[in-house]
């Protein structure tokens, strides 16, 4: 009996590892393609095993495209979005959780409902709005419509609700106001959740394609996900270079994920409400 169990477990272990490796095969293949010469990529001899290590495609990706500019746009806009979303989200969540004011229930209802609203359906009028404000092809134009992330408020509210009332009273007795409470008590008590939400918001903003694609009109304002699609034409179809650009574009977040794997998976779990 024990033996069967053991065998079963090793089959399970081996099988699932194999499945997981197969699952990531496209990434492996992209990498192998990217370190080959263009001629070899399309030759019949190109096998599954890496047989050359050629970095031409990477050099060309870095120097013949505006990849570095796109990195910069992506980083800047994603960081700004993350900071603004978190700060405005925690302020709003604090008010909903800890304060009494007219319209509180309504506000929370709106936040919950907007979770289901498809913002993509608003592209036409959001575009018109950005144009009215003169923000087409600017960072502000990329950022503004991405600032509504209701899940941040929902999660913060749940966590603020759970903070013991005694912590509040001490500060209030000292004459501290709500801002002090939020930034001196509630925020420090919830650094973990803040990191988690920051990670999620950042990844979401970094990977955003549709909106930046609409609002950006020139190559030097593009973000990584949009820029990558431009390379197709600048190069013609050169697969090694395409794959090199794609992998370079994916790299920052992928590396971050591989290093802080636990933190990221935890962040996903928390922000979707399945783990408190």
């Amino acid at each position, binding site marked *: 009996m024990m033996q069967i169990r053991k065998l079963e477990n090793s089959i399970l272990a081996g099988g699932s590892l194999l499945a997981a490796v197969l699952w990531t095969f496209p990434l492996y293949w992209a990498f192998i393609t990217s370190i080959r010469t263009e001629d070899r990529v399309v030759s019949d001899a190109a096998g599954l095993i890496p047989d050359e290590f050629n970095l031409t495609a990477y050099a060309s990706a870095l120097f013949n495209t505006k990849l570095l500019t796109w990195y910069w746009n992506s980083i800047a806009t994603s960081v700004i979005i993350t900071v603004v979303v978190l700060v405005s989200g925690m302020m709003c969540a604090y008010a909903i959780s800890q304060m009494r004011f007219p319209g509180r229930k309504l506000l929370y209802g709106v936040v919950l409902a907007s979770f289901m609203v498809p913002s993509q359906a608003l592209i036409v009028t959001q575009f018109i709005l950005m144009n009215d404000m003169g923000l087409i092809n600017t960072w502000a134009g990329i950022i503004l419509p991405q600032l509504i992330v209701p899940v941040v408020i929902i999660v913060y509210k749940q966590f603020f609700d759970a903070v013991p009332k005694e912590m509040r009273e001490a500060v209030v007795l000292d004459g501290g106001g709500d801002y002090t409470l939020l930034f001196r008590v509630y925020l420090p008590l919830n650094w973990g959740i803040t990191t988690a939400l920051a990670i999620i918001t950042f990844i979401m903003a970094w990977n955003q394609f549709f909106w930046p694609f609409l609002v950006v009109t020139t190559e030097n304002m593009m973000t990584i996900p949009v820029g990558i699609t431009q390379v197709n034409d600048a190069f013609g*179809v050169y697969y090694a270079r395409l794959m090199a650009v794609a992998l370079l574009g994916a790299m920052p977040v992928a590396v971050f994920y591989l290093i802080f794997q636990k933190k990221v998976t935890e962040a996903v779990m928390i922000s979707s409400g399945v783990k408190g």
Partner: protein
Amino acid sequence: MNYVKRLLAAGAMSFAALPAFAAQNVTWWDFLSGGDGVRMKALIQRFNEEHPDIQINGTTLEWGVPFYTKVRTSVTVGQGPDVMTYHLSRMPLGLEENVLDTISDEDMAAAGLSKSDFFPASIAAASDENGALHAVPFDIHSIVLYVNKSYLKGSRFLDDKGNVTGIESLADFEEAMALAKANGSDTPLSYATGDDGGTYRVFYTLMKQQGGELIADGQVLPGDNLGKAAKAIEIMTHWHEEGWQPEQAEYPASVALFTSGKSAFHMNGVWEVPTMIDLAAQNKLGFEWTAIQIPTLLGTTATWADSHAFAIPAGSKMSPEKRKAVMTVIGWMEKNSLAWAGAGHIPAYKPVATSESFKEMEPNATYSSLAETAAYDPRSVIAGVASPVYDASINIISPAMHGYMDPQQAAEQLQAELQAKLH
């Protein structure tokens, strides 16, 4: 305090002094990549070297839908370039979208040009109904038949001087393809069968060679034109079934099939001429090539054609100095368009097109006769590059000829879908 004031004053002065030395920066958008793009970039560089007071900042965007979508949105929100390349086939659409500024006679004069320097047909194509000019024509380009002579050696399709001959009907052409196939050509006729432009250009040529009209009097494929469209798709389907044309070839693959020697024939725009010339010069082609006018396969001599032109976006608030600089750029490009003819095109500017140097240029001279039978797109808001007609080519014609739909049915769907867009 005094110090700060002095500093500010100095700053202000240097700013005031700046314009005198600063060059006019002209933002330029085009969609030219590949062999075309290289030649255009060289022209821009030469211009910049010769004009210290005007600098062109060129951006190349993806040809077709991405370019024109970007242009339309950017221009309507006032973020367009100072000058851009534009297809004359798209003029009706451009006028409807209101993205093209009027180019006045004074503008032309500033460029050192006048309307009479161009062929009347291209001036008409670049003007609106009231005769106001909205673009300066730069070239005429069409598709041609590239030939790899090695597959035709010793056959009746090559005369003793090595010229391609004897293709005077569809039957002749299909015989030549069968022969090339028998001589070892994998895919005797390559064109971009999985690409909107590649499919459309061949389809439209076959339409016009039957004397057909795609759009007439606001009707899509009226009367017997529906049957002609079906016939054109049927011919392309037949080429597919015989294995003469490649399956779902993207544009670069279709060129590669010819340059790698696998295809005896290649139907594509004159803009690939420089590719062949360059490869032949480097001894990388490995065969003798030529480019000829598309043979008359279906009774009427006709070839799909279009023109590149320069346009200024509507609603731009550029200063008179900047506008003058832009016109200087356009004028210079026209006068130096012999270099552009090196990209296979036929110049639209008559002094260059009729010059001895152009007449001696090969292979342009071999096919320049086609200008007389060039078949431009119908003048309609649904036609032209990146128009619904192009969309329908990739969405309907290309899959149909690959056997996913009967030609007659495909022609009917083409008609229904395009007619709906004309409302």
